[in-house]
C-alpha cells in the first residue's frame, strides 16, 4: 500500500516536472515568435522610414528649386535646451536637431570647435 502511494506520488511529481518543462519550452517558442515579429516590424519600419527619407529628399530638391538663394545657407536653429547652433538644412526643410553630448566618447579636434561632427560606426 505504502509503495503504491510512493509510486503514485512519484508519477505525479514526474508529470508535474514534464508539464513545467513543456510549459517553459512553449514559453521559449512564444518569445522567439515575438522576437521574430519585432524584427519584422523593425524591418517594415525601416522601409517606411527609408521611403519617408526619399520623399524628404524630393521635397528638399523641389523647395530648393523654388528658393535657390536660401537652399544651402546655414541658418540659426535653437535646440530644445535653448542652445543656439548653426544648422545647414534648417530653412529649406526644418529637421530635428539632436543635442547629443560628447560624454565619455573619444574625439579629435578642438574641444570648443565651431562645428561638431558625431559619427556612429561599427567595426565591420
Amino acid at each position, binding site marked *: 500500500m505504502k509503495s503504491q502511494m510512493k509510486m503514485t506520488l512519484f508519477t505525479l511529481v514526474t508529470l508535474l516536472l514534464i508539464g513545467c518543462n513543456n510549459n517553459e519550452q512553449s514559453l521559449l517558442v512564444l518569445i522567439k515568435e515575438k522576437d521574430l515579429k519585432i524584427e519584422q516590424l523593425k524591418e517594415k519600419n*525601416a522601409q517606411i*522610414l*527609408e521611403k519617408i*527619407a526619399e520623399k524628404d*529628399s524630393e521635397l*528638399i*530638391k523641389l523647395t*530648393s528649386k523654388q528658393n535657390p538663394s536660401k537652399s*544651402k*545657407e*546655414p541658418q540659426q*536653429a535653437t*535646440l530644445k535646451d535653448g542652445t543656439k*547652433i*548653426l*544648422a*545647414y*538644412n*534648417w530653412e529649406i526643410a526644418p*529637421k*530635428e*536637431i*539632436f*543635442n*547629443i*553630448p*560628447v*560624454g*565619455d*566618447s*573619444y*574625439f*579629435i*579636434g*578642438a*574641444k570648443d*570647435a*565651431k*562645428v*561638431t*561632427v*558625431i*559619427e*556612429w*560606426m*561599427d*567595426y*565591420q
Partner: protein
Amino acid sequence: MDKLVAQYPNDVKVVFKNFPLRSHKQANKAALYALAAGRQGKYHEMHNAIMAQFRDLKNNEDLPLQLADEMGLDIQLLQEDMSDPALQQQIYQETNELRSTGLRLAVPKILINGEEWDRKQFPNIEVLVKQLIDKAG
C-alpha cells in the same frame, strides 16, 4: 574625418560613437578593444588600424590584439581593461544615444551640429563644414 580635422584643427571636432550591429559578431569586441586601447592613450590609433583592416576582423576577432602589440601597448592591461564593465556600459550608452534620436539605425550615421548629414544634398562634407565654419565667423 582625420582629413577634416587636419584641415580645420581649431574649428572642427569629430566625436566617435560606437554602434556595433548585432549582425556583425566581431564589432562589439573590436569596439571594446578600441576603448581599452584608449585607456593607454591609443584610441584613435587603434580605431584607424581596425578600420584599415576591418575585412580581416571577420575571420580573426582578436586581430586588435596583434595591432595592439604592434603599437607597443601593454597587452595584459589591455585585456584587463577589456573585461571592465564600464567599457561595455559606454558602448550601450553610445548605442542608446543613436536610438534616442529615432533616426534610422544604419551606420555610419553622421550628425553635423546636431543635424543628420544629408549626403544626397551635400555629397561633399568638407564643403558643408567649411560653409558652417564661415557662417559661424
